[in-house]
C-alpha cells in the first residue's frame, strides 16, 4: 500500500483523508473544519483516525504527534502525514 503513495501531493493526501471521513460520517469536510468540535464523530473516532493515517500513508504516529490537535482537521492531518513521510521527527 505504501508503494503507491510515494509521490502523493498534499492535495492527494487531503483527498484520501476526505474520502475516509465522508465514508465514516456521510459529511463533506472542508480542510480547516474542526472534526471534534462538530460533535459529528464518535468517541472511538480519534483512534480510528490514527490507525487510518498510519495504515494508509505508511507512517508511524508516535510521541508528541499522537495528539488530538494533529487530527483535528483535514489540513492538520495532511501536514502531519507530509512531515512524517519526508522523515521529519516531530516527536
Amino acid at each position, binding site marked *: 500500500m505504501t508503494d503507491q503513495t510515494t509521490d502523493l501531493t498534499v492535495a492527494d493526501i487531503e483527498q484520501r483523508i476526505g474520502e475516509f471521513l465522508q465514508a465514516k460520517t456521510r459529511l463533506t469536510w472542508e480542510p480547516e473544519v474542526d472534526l471534534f468540535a462538530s460533535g459529528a464523530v464518535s468517541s472511538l473516532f480519534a483512534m480510528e483516525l490514527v490507525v487510518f493515517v498510519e*495504515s494508509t500513508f505508511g507512517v508511524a504516529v508516535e*510521541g508528541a504527534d499522537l495528539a*488530538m490537535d494533529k487530527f483535528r482537521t483535514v489540513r492538520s492531518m495532511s501536514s502531519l502525514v507530509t512531515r512524517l513521510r519526508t522523515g521529519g521527527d516531530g516527536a
Partner: protein
Amino acid sequence: MLDALTALVTETVADAAGEWDVAGEIPIDVLRGLGAKGVLCAEANPTFGGLGLSGAANGELAAHTGALCSSLRSVMTSQGMAAWTIQRFGDKAQRTEYIGRLTGGELAAVAFSEPGAGSDLAAMATEIRGDGDEIVVDGTKTWITVAAYADWILVFGRHERGAAVAVVPTSAPGVRVTRVAEPLGCRAGGHATVELDEVRLPAANLLAVAGQPALMLTTIALTYGRLSVAWGCVGILRACLAAVARHAATREQFGKPLLQHQLVARHLAELYAAERTATFACEQASRSWDAGSPEQVPASVLAKHVAAGNAARGAASAMQVLASAGAAGGHVVERAYRDAKLMEIIEGSNEICQLILAEHAASAAG
C-alpha cells in the same frame, strides 16, 4: 510458534487451575517464568525482546489460556495491555526499557478505575503533576487486575489539561497495594486497591504522550484489553462446551444419556452456537487489528460484547447441565460461571459496550 506457546501454557497450568482459584493466588514463580519467556505479552515487538506474535495468534493463545485458567488469562491481558500502552504512548527509550522488562520476567498492571470513575473514566481524579524534573502521582485506583503481583503499574491520571500515564513501581514510597478479598471471579488474578499518596518519581516515568484527552488515551489502551478479554471469553466457552459434551454423553438419567434428553441437548446446541459466534467476532476483530484497519476499534467492542455475553450465558447453562458434578469449588465449570460474570463488567461493561455500539451504528447509518 503458537503451538509451542499453547503447549507451554498447558504444561505450566497442568491441573493446578482449581487449586490457584481456591487459594486466590498463582505462585509468583509461575508468572515470572511465563513472563520471562515472553508468553504473557506475546505480541510485543522482537526489537524489545518480544515474540512478535500476530494479534490473531495472540488471541488464540489467550483463548487457550482462558479455557484452562481465567486468572492466568487476566494476567496475560494486563501484561499485554501494558506492553501495548507503552508501545503506543512511550518514546523510544521508554519502549526499550519497559517492554524489555515485561519480556524479562517483570509483571505489570494497568490502572484505570477509581472509586468515583468506573464506566465514566473521564471522571478520573488521580492526579499526575509535574514538579521540576520529577512527577507526583496522587490518587486511589480500585479493582486493578494483577496489582498484587506487579513490579510496576501504569497509572492513568489527570495531567495538565488532559490525561497521561505514569509508570509507578509498587516499591516506590507512598504506594500501598491491598488485595481485594475473595473476588467473585478470576480469583487468582491479583486484583487490588492501589493507593498513591504523593508518589514522587523521575519525570522519565511519565509516558511521552501526555496531556491528551482521557477518552482518547483510555480508548487506545482498552482496545487491546477488550480484544484480549473477548478471546479469553472464547476460552471460557470452549472449556464449558467440552465439559458439557463429555458429561451429557456419559451421565445417564431416566435410563438414557443426558444428551438424549432434548432439553439438555438444547443447552449443548446453544453453547456450541455461543462458542462459534464469539470466535467469529474475535477472528474478525483480530484480522482488522492485524491489517491496521480502523474497523478494529468498533470490531473490538463488538467482539468483547458478544463474547462476554455468550460466556456468561454459556457458563450458566453449562452449570445447569453439570449440576452437582460441576458445583464443587475450583471445578472448571464452577470457575467459568463466576469468571464469566466478571467479564460482563470489566473492560467496558455490557452497557458501556452497548452505548459505544449504538453510537457507532447511528453514525454509520448517517
